[in-house]
């Protein structure tokens, strides 16, 4: 009996396997790293959640896959007033919202939907403002409540957005998930049914895939939207299999239980590359890890001390030990994949002898200083402690005794923002492909009071002026020039040690066709198919 049961189970399992391969032809299975917080694109800002809402929604503008350049999407074109304050968007008229069991759209996407989507976040009186929490962290994090003055309907397919002050990256900012366009018709129906909260739980968008179901911590299912305005997808179904452990994601990919996955452990990359059934795509991440040198503290208030420390840190050793080679040494505070990157700047060479000489010339002797290391792994810094130990050894070579210090992550950030760290590891991952998003972390906005996000507390009028001028200009060539000057100034003044830009890996089955690495670090499945 027992034997028979086992045989029956084995047979069933075998049949299941065959069934799976027959059916999998049109299902793309992505092993994702965590559960989304929800499906409201406006409510959340974690990369995981944005990946999960991305297949469902579109924005007025979007970022061209594989680049950081904005392109038209729901808006087919736009005009900008000469003073950079008024943007007029001309909408496509052939965009249909998804249908679900409870909602069938009766009209195409129009200006009402755009106005509704923005006013929900902007206007506290909007009936949907407080639904599902009433906080819009990304919208607020990008300073939109202060930037946006009004969003108005001009006619059925034209929307006018007025700003309070010129904001050159605005078109790129509109490509972000918080600016997704929701259906007003759906919102009105839900309000009439007394089910407003469903707007973020049973999402209706215009994107390449419609939402089917979500089982928390297990699986998200989508199916191809037959009416998608850029054409129906080649795959019929998209499935996110939520798999939190990197070793398990690797195992699932190798066994064929998923077609594509992300964030492999650095140590596993070689094994994945060696598997004949797999390919591992890689791209430089839109990020930077750096070490702050507090300009308001002694002796790092002295420029030549800061330059000397820049020469004391061996970045190649960090790349090898902390990232297993999966990173490139940084010379600027801007990643090389972004436009406006200044390739002409020269990195400080690793030269302990020269550094020691410079420190002595500056009168620095027998220095003991606290170096803060990050207590958590971040995409740009995989192991703060190990990196700290390497820095400690490097600094010892130039006669600086470094004490390694850390705190709980929240406490670390709080103290760092408050300017308590003499030297600290920190970094940044870009939200948009605009240099302003990286460079505005430094400088003091024309004052002598460093804002919290300026972790090195270095102020420079010249730097602030360059950034202000660039943010207000809409001429890309002029902005590029200004940002290049700002980077050169940062290198010369050395308020931080730019460390590395980490490399991002995407392991996938060789059956996956058309996947493009996104320099912004998101994961797009539009246009991806299986052979």
């Amino acid at each position, binding site marked *: 009996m027992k034997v028979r049961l086992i045989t029956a189970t084995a047979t069933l399992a075998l049949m299941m396997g065959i*069934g799976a391969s027959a059916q999998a032809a049109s299902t793309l299975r992505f092993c994702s790293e965590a559960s989304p*917080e929800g499906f409201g694109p406006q409510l959340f800002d974690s990369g995981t959640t944005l990946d999960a809402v991305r297949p469902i929604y579109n924005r007025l503008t979007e970022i061209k896959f594989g680049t950081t350049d904005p392109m038209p999407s729901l808006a087919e074109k736009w005009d900008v007033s000469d003073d950079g304050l008024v943007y007029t968007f001309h909408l496509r008229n052939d965009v249909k919202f998804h249908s679900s069991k409870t909602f069938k759209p009766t009209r195409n996407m129009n200006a009402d939907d755009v106005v509704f989507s923005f006013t929900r976040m902007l206007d506290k009186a909007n009936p949907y403002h407080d639904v599902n929490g009433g*906080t819009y962290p990304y919208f607020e994090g990008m300073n939109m409540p202060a930037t946006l003055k009004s969003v108005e309907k001009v006619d059925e397919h034209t929307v006018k957005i007025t700003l309070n002050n010129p904001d050159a990256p605005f078109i790129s900012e509109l490509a972000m998930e918080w600016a997704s366009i929701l259906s007003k018709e759906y919102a009105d129906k839900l309000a009439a049914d007394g089910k407003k909260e469903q707007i973020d739980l049973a999402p209706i968008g215009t994107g390449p895939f419609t939402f089917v*179901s979500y089982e928390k911590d297990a699986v998200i299912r989508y199916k191809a939207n037959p009416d998608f305005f850029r054409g129906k997808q080649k795959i019929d179904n998209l499935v996110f299999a939520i*798999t*939190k452990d990197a070793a*398990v994601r690797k195992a699932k990919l190798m066994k064929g239980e998923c077609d594509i996955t992300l964030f492999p452990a650095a140590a596993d990359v070689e094994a994945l590359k060696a598997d004949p059934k797999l390919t591992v795509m890689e791209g430089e991440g839109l990020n930077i890890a750096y070490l702050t040198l507090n300009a308001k503290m002694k002796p790092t208030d002295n420029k030549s001390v800061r330059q000397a420390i820049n020469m004391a840190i061996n970045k190649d050793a960090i790349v090898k030990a902390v990232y297993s080679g999966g990173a490139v040494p940084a010379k600027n505070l801007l990643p090389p994949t972004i436009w406006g990157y200044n390739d002409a700047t020269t990195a400080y060479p690793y030269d302990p002898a020269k550094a020691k000489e410079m420190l002595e010339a500056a009168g620095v002797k027998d220095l003991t200083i606290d170096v803060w290391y990050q207590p958590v792994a971040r995409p740009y810094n995989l192991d703060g402690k190990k990196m700290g130990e390497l820095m400690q050894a490097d600094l010892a070579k130039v006669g600086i005794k470094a004490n390694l210090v850390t705190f*709980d992550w929240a406490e670390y950030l709080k103290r760092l923002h408050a300017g308590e760290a003499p030297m600290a590891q920190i970094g940044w991952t870009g939200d948009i492909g605009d240099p302003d998003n990286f460079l505005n972390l430094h400088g003091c906005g024309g004052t002598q009071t460093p804002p919290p996000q300026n972790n090195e507390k270095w102020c420079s009028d010249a730097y602030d002026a360059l950034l202000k001028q660039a943010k207000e200009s809409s001429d890309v060539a002029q902005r590029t020039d200004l940002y290049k000057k700002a980077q050169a100034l940062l290198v010369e003044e050395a308020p931080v040690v730019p460390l590395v830009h980490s490399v991002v890996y995407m392991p996938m089955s060789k059956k996956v066709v058309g996947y493009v690495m996104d320099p912004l670090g998101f994961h797009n499945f539009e246009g991806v198919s299986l052979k």
Partner: protein
Amino acid sequence: MIRFVLQRVLLIVPTFFGAALLTFTLIHMIPGDPIQMMLGEKVVEPARHAAMLAQYGLDRPLYVQFFDYVWHALQGDFGKSISTKNPILVDFFALFPATLELAFCAMVFAIVLAIPAGVLAAEKRGSIYDHTLMGAALTGYSMPIFWWGLLLILFFSIYLGWTPVSGRISLDYYFDEGTGFMLYDSLVSDQEGAFASAVSHLILPAIVLGTIPLAVIARMTRSSMLEVLGEDYVRTARAKGLSGFRVVGIHALRNALIPVVTVIGLQVGTLMGGAILTENIFSWPGVGSWLVNSIYQRDYPAVQGGVLLISGFVILVNLTVDLVYGVLNPRIRGRR
């Protein structure tokens, strides 16, 4: 008997209150707040930060927050998650069936293997069987769950290819409306192969989670059995010429099982703790991994509600064990 039941039930009140107070204190002792964790490297104005905290009522004095929380919890309102914005009960009960199913199967696996192993080891005390079984039990007990899980995946899923790596069922199966208990849902669905798939997905996680209880129960069964086997009535039974099976299996085992039942009840708490790691390794969508995430995000309502509900479950299981025990053993319920 009524007095016994009342006593046990009344004990639940201070236990619950203690659990709530402890969770509340501990989670608030960790530095950082949910807003800060959400923002990461980003910075908002202190005024805006304060306003966001106020929105969740986190600006009030801690004791006010605590009593307010308890007051609402007593009415069945555990608040809303800060990260998902869903009511805690909705999030919890979406995941709890998965944990329950896994814990139940792990326990069945543990009991089915542990009791015969314990009996055999006691009966053959000092033999090679005894040493092997108890050695294996000690190894099982000492094995880190995380490592054990990955080892099994590597061997059975990758090397032999017998079992799936992770998840609850193959991605090809999908139930529109289910109870959350995958074994049941797949059995009643008309999709061919669904039940086999669910079973095959359950095997490794149940083994991993069941290993520690298996070791504990086996050792407990052995020592309890040894004690009983030395009793006069067992010697009498043997002297009467009863078969070895009747002596050990009926007379001795029945008495030896009383302490074992208590241990099984207590192991439910261990299972809930072990579920956190097991769920993470096998991408099992249960409350364990949800709770860990909530701690990382300082999602206070989720952590408080989750811990309270899980402790409620453990308390309930132990209460049931106590009551069953009282029924089985009149000496207990009579004790003052």
